[in-house]
């Protein structure tokens, strides 16, 4: 049962050959069996999940079910869930029971999806290996000595290990696509503004975007269809109708123009990853696509620009965690200063502190123009690069990450090397474009992700391009050994 995709399970639920309660129990059993080792969950809500499953079964019987009704899934622990701890992977929020639901939480609830728990993540979504979590690192199901990627490491590992058919994630610089690649699953980050950020704890407001992990592009179409949409509570969400993602999945790829940025195939790219990507491109050629060499000349500026903009925004976004109203408070503060410094000093981990410091510095008087303003200008250049490219091509492809999953601890003490693992994904966030990672083979026995970038609001095309590839190949059906 656990090898079935979301769409297959949905069909079984509709037919009545499977109940949501059975399916949910099966998921909960797998979590209790495997997750002590994987550590992909921070919170599991057995009773709440079973109650929701029973309600979903009633809804299915009543003929009022949608494609997600009764489907178990996990939320990244960054989405606020009323009455359930929402930790953001931080000691700061270890005691935080969200008093309200994020818009995404609410939408999935209304769709009848069954939340089984909240997944582990890098602290406040800052990290690329899930090693900065207060709750300890998540293990990659393909090799427990390697990282699952980050920051949505728990959500990716849980889907890869077949603990749940789908999960939510957030992507600020690659936090959905990079772990999807490292865990051999499908992950989509839509256009900035497509999914509401209300109730999604902010890391970098102008870059954060919610999305989904599944095992196929078709499943992702179902998840995204339920999560996307205008939300008046998020001023940056875009008021335009959500496309019918399922409807476009089967369009043939004949004549599709795929752009290949030469900048993505240079130094630093692992040979095994490059070979897998080449093979995937051959597959697309067979499907009728043509490959066009393109250039994104400002690619080299994306990591530096990102590491100004994201920390700057985070330094401000994380100011509300001050020990006054919620979250961690240092014991026996002797005065206000002490309350602030110790609550924040004890509540935040090293990577979060590092980024707050970098961000506060970049915004400080006398440095603002040189850093923040300059970085915003670079953002426009990067965006223009993409827009020029999309005049020539329909989608852009490349590797999602420069290497396969690296060893736990391997980059933990080398932030710059860690930051470079997001080198291909970051520019997409700076430009606000939609992008997806799909499994495209293996290197040294570990999964390789193919990165597909689309023009604004062309999530439908990305899913179509992913789905057609997954009809022709079976990389996405490979399960890690033992799962």
């Amino acid at each position: 049962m656990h090898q079935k995709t979301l769409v297959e399970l949905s069909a079984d639920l509709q037919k009545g050959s499977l109940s949501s309660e059975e399916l949910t129990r099966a998921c909960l059993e797998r979590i209790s069996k495997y997750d002590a080792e994987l550590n992909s969950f921070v919170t599991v809500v057995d009773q709440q999940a079973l109650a929701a499953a029973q309600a979903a079964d009633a809804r299915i019987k009543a003929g009022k079910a949608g494609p997600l009704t009764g489907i178990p899934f996990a939320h990244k622990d960054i989405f606020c869930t009323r009455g359930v701890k929402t930790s953001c992977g931080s000691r700061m929020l270890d005691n935080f029971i969200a008093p309200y639901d994020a818009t995404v939480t609410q939408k999935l609830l209304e769709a009848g999806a069954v939340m089984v728990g909240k997944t582990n993540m890098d602290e406040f979504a800052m990290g690329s290996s899930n090693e900065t979590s207060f709750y300890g690192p998540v293990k990659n199901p393909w090799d427990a000595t390697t990282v699952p990627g980050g920051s949505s490491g728990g959500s990716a590992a849980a889907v890869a290990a077949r603990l749940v058919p789908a999960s939510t994630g957030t992507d600020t610089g690659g936090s959905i696509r990079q772990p999807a690649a490292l865990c051999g699953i499908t992950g989509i980050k839509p256009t900035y503004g497509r999914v509401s950020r209300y109730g999604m704890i902010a890391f970098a407001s102008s870059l954060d975007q919610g999305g989904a992990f599944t095992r196929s592009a078709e499943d992702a179409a179902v998840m995204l269809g339920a999560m996307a949409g205008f939300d008046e509570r998020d001023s940056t969400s875009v008021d335009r109708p959500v496309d019918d993602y399922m409807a476009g999945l089967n369009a043939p790829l004949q004549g599709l123009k795929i752009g290949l940025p030469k900048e993505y195939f240079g130094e630093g790219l692992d040979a095994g990853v490059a070979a897998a990507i080449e093979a995937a491109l051959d597959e697309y050629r067979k499907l009728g696509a043509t490959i066009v060499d393109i250039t994104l000349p400002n690619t080299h500026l994306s990591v530096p620009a990102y590491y100004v903009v994201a920390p700057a925004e985070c330094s401000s976004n994380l100011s509300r965690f001050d020990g006054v109203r919620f979250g961690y408070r240092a014991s026996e503060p002797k005065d206000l200063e002490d309350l602030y410094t110790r609550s924040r000093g004890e509540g935040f981990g090293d990577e979060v502190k590092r980024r707050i410091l970098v961000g506060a510095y970049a915004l400080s008087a006398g440095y603002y123009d040189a850093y923040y303003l300059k970085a915003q200008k670079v953002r426009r250049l990067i965006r223009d690069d993409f827009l020029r490219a999309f005049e020539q091509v329909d989608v852009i492809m490349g590797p999602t990450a420069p290497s396969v999953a690296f060893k736990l601890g391997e980059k933990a003490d080398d932030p710059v090397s860690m930051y470079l693992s997001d080198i291909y994904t970051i520019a997409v966030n700076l430009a606000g474009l939609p992008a997806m990672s799909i499994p495209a083979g293996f290197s040294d026995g570990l999964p390789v992700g193919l990165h597909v970038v689309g023009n604004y609001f062309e999530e439908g095309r990305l899913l179509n391009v992913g789905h057609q590839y997954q009809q022709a190949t079976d990389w996405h059906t490979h399960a890690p050994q033992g799962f």
Partner: protein
Amino acid sequence: MEWETVIGLEIHTQLATTSKIFSGASTTYGAEPNTQACAVDLGLPGVLPVLNAEVVRMAAKFGLATHSTVAKRSVFDRKNYFYPDLPKGYQISQLALPIVHDGYLDIDLEDGVTKRIGITRAHLEEDAGKSLHESFQGMTGIDLNRAGTPLLEIVSEPELRSAREAVAYMRKIHSLVRYLDISDGNMQEGSFRCDANVSVRPIGQEEFGTRAEIKNISCFSFVEQAINLEVERQIMLIESGGTVVQETRLFDPDKHETRPMRSKEEANDYRYFPDPDLLPVEIDDDFIEAVRNTLPELPDTRKARFVSEHGLSDYDAGVLTASRELADYFEAVVEASGGQGKLSANWVMGELSGALNKSDCEVKDSPVTAAALGAMLQRIEDGTISGKIAKQVFEAMWNGEGSADEIIEQQGLKQISDSSAIEGIIREVLDNNPKQIEQYRGGQEKLFGFFVGQVMKATQGKANPKQVNELLRKLLDS
């Protein structure tokens, strides 16, 4: 050395919206602490601000009324600092691109001169909560009801040259925001407060002196006192060889001094940057024109009209238009009195204002309505009562004893205008005071008043004074 004072004011006025600037919570004053703070106001993780469109309309109204540019595009920025009553650790404000800029306001000075004061800018921002230091032993309570209340911060050019000018400017702004119906201007509740930037320079010097900013002054008389004290302090400091340091200071009305609020070491770097959670505010000409169409008659226009239409003096027209409520009341009195402009002005500025002051009452809550007062003025005009008796009638009306006509009737206050009756009384008075008649006729003409007084006393003030004068003179001089 002769010194010149240079003052710029930053006035913070709460906008009278029903909900907050970035959330749906109520802005009503005086609720139980923290009962009017929703998830957004509390700065809970994950919440986002959504701009209340009403504040944009209100700010645009202010901009149009002050001949300012209403910006087609303005941007909200984050002002970052830590304070317990600032829930997010930053205040959403506008720095580089405010919604209103480059306007002016004409103020009337005591010597009758009109002075034009430049308005640099007016920007939108959210108010903070309140820290409550009393009643929490050794601790501080935080009330976030006020957090997120919309504020318009109105910044003047440093063109005010005395504490009195500053007060005149502040009063004019206060009057204007109430005219525009964008703020209740309630100073007790903190809806209208100001920071004063004060410096001094030798007369003739162009360069400004170093300024000190006096924070959060909440009433007109404090503004005047605080500025005067600060000017005195700065002059004494400079003349004794010291230098003024740029700092924020607090006015203490009890100790009658200003003193530094925080030292320079703690000076904040606010790390302003555009708020990524909010889109730039973009408005078009249609929007601005629609707002323009909602503008009421403004104080300056109304004042000019009072002079030309009701024949008032500049001064009276200025007093009556100082607040929209008073001007509205006055015009209603004029109408009810059958067009008695000058008489209405005298009564509104005299008896009515006096009674309002005495009972600490707002004109809108006056127990004597404009219609009732106007009806009474008609009784003066038609000779039913004298101006003097009218004061008695007014007092009875103020005490809720009925309409002017009812009171005149019940208390028998109708003026005696029957010549023969008045003559009879005069004769009686003259008969009783033969000695005074002799003195009067001997040249002590000021005793005329004595006889008038006696007649009025005998008629309990009801005799028509004009007739009394005429008849008395006739009888005395005959």
